[in-house]
């Protein structure tokens, strides 16, 4: 209903660019005798323009999108900037045409403009006007200047009105004469008026949607984070930053809510094999409403989707935030305005991270080191320990960051996802949504204990990862499925596109050991983690 009403209001703006509407020249075209002709004959101007529109010969462009502070200004500002004022003052119509004699052209009664000020006669040969016609003779047009108070531009319409067949003869006798309008007048008028109808309509549409906000990633970088367990997970919390970008207007306290648009999929999991996922029509999840206002600076917000959880195994995700409440500027106050903004983020991405310290590598061979006695760790019998581990992580934290050095130390309070700890052959799994082409994945444990030495140390590493893209876009008239080319791989029995694992460093010195590690026993077991419930 809202958008239908908006369309109807815009129709009225477009009507105001038709001079018969703004010069009280009835043109309903209703022939019922009971109307006594009060509703007027059909408009030849509208018929002419419609014919051009149907044949695709109208030019709609060339006028800027109008920006005015109040809805009524688009019609009438009292200083000439409204479209109704322009069409009223710059054109004549069939029943508000010029009066007076040719030597003393007068404006129509009640319509002071256009008038004789700046008016000139233009005589044009019919053969020139209508190439190929058998008609002969000269047509006389009355031209008048026009002035656009919105843009400040001016021009000259050389065919505002036309002498009728009888104008000259009647004028010579001093008798009242009639001026006429024809397709030549209508052609000139529509060239001036149609682009204005478009510019004012677009302006009103923009005015309706003038309440705008900008969305940015939260300090914690990920908009959505969820544990991923046994192939399932849901996002129940959206974190982001928002600021008001409405031109010249501030919000009061109102209601904020977030909308997440996504596409569910069939045939394949978008998390595991995005290239084979068949994306459905969009679905929408709406957060619980919350009270608040918008500020000019970004402010962090967290939206609760517990009642409308978003599946993690989806694609083509975008997030939107809507504010409903008071919006005030120096020129208007609206009690129930809408301020809206959205962002197309990338798709949910599954990452497994785990502890593979139960294996070490020596001379291109993997050795299982759990419960391995010290006597079997010096493989070359040189008196030095060759095999290390396993290692227990006391606390395991992961976080997404922009490329570059760490922005904050990674710990329980700054993680996107946290595990109480990881023993060897254990892993954590989570899904996140972010908005950058690439990002840095950090993995840390503040305290690790090597079972073979009892030594403690912290662990930190980072890997640059690409975004996940999987969306439907329209481009050059074609529907395009845009997707990142990656797929899940198995690592010690767990499946994900990305596996980041803590290993003994000898492992990565040997390609043979690297290649063998994904297939060793025992299979990984999953450890449940959590999304820290702290500010974003």
């Amino acid at each position, binding site marked *: 209903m809202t958008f239908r009403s908006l369309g109807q209001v815009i129709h009225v703006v477009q009507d105001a660019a038709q001079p018969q509407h703004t010069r009280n020249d009835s043109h309903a075209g209703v022939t019922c005798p009971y109307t006594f002709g009060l509703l007027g004959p059909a408009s030849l101007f509208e018929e002419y323009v419609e014919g051009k529109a149907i044949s695709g010969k109208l030019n709609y462009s060339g006028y800027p999108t109008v920006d005015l502070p109040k809805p009524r200004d688009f019609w009438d500002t009292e200083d000439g900037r409204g479209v109704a004022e322009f069409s009223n003052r710059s054109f004549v119509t069939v029943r508000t045409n010029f009066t007076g004699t040719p030597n003393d052209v007068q404006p129509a009664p009640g319509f002071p403009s256009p008038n004789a000020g700046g008016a000139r006669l233009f005589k044009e040969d019919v053969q020139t006007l209508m190439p190929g016609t058998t008609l002969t003779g000269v047509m006389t047009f009355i031209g008048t200047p026009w002035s656009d108070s919105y843009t400040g531009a001016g021009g000259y319409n050389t065919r505002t009105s036309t002498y009728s067949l009888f104008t000259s003869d009647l004028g010579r006798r001093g008798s009242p004469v009639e001026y006429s309008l024809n397709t030549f007048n209508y052609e000139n008028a529509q060239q001036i008026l149609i682009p204005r109808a478009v510019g004012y309509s677009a302006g009103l549409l923009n005015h309706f949607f003038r309440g705008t906000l900008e969305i940015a990633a939260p300090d914690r970088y990920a908009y959505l984070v969820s544990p991923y367990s046994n192939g399932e997970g849901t996002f129940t919390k959206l974190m982001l930053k928002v600021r008001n970008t409405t031109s010249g207007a501030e919000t009061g306290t109102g209601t904020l809510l977030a909308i997440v648009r996504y596409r569910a999929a*069939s*045939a394949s999991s978008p998390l595991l094999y995005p*290239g084979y996922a*068949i*994306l*459905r*029509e969009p679905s929408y999840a709406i957060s619980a409403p919350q009270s608040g206002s918008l500020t000019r600076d970004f402010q962090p917000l967290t939206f609760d989707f517990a009642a409308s959880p978003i599946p993690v195994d989806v694609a083509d995700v975008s997030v939107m935030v809507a504010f409903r409440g008071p919006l005030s500027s120096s020129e208007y106050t609206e009690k129930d305005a809408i301020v809206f903004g959205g962002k197309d983020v990338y798709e949910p991405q599954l990452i497994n991270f785990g502890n*593979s*310290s139960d294996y070490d590598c020596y001379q291109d061979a993997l050795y299982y080191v759990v419960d391995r006695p010290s006597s079997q*760790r010096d493989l070359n019998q040189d008196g*030095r*320990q060759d095999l*290390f*581990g396993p*290692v227990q992580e006391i606390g395991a934290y992961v976080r997404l960051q922009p490329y570059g*050095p760490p922005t904050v130390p990674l710990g329980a309070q700054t993680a996107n996802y946290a595990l109480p700890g990881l023993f060897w052959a254990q892993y954590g799994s989570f899904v996140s949504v972010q908005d950058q*082409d*690439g990002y*840095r994945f950090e*993995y840390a444990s503040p305290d*690790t204990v*090597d079972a073979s*030495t009892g*030594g403690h*140390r*912290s*662990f*930190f*590493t*980072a*890997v*640059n*990862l*690409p975004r996940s*893209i999987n969306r*439907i876009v329209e481009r050059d008239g074609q*529907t*395009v*499925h*845009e*997707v*990142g*080319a*990656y*797929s899940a791989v198995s*690592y010690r029995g767990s499946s994900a*596109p*990305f*596996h*980041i*694992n*803590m*290993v*003994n*460093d000898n*492992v*990565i010195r040997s390609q043979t050991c690297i*290649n063998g*590690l*994904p297939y060793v026993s025992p299979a990984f077991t999953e450890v449940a983690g959590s999304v820290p419930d702290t500010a974003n």
Partner: protein
Amino acid sequence: MNSRALQLVALALCAAAAGDARARVSYAGPGRTTGTAVIDDSERGMREIRPGDVLPDVGELREIDEHEIVFDRPLSDEEREQWRAAGGVVPDIQRVHLYRRPTPEDESTPGAGAAAITAD
């Protein structure tokens, strides 16, 4: 028994590759010649390709940058029917972004080396 210091590092396993099970293609980086890309083709090994080249089952190379190469492939009638039957919106084209293999960061805790990356 003496021991060297234990070092812990990350091993990242990722699968950025396009194509079917027979011929998998991964992006190794921009080529030496401007406007070319080096790919690792499981059937033909490392080679340079340029925009307009067509790889079977992957598509026509359209864009190259530091981080990814992009292919366009029209969907077959069979694929379109699969999308239609599954109730999905039916694309005309599949645009495939083939990411360059992820890279490790240099910094890590003292005593720990950089992460190693391996691709499937």
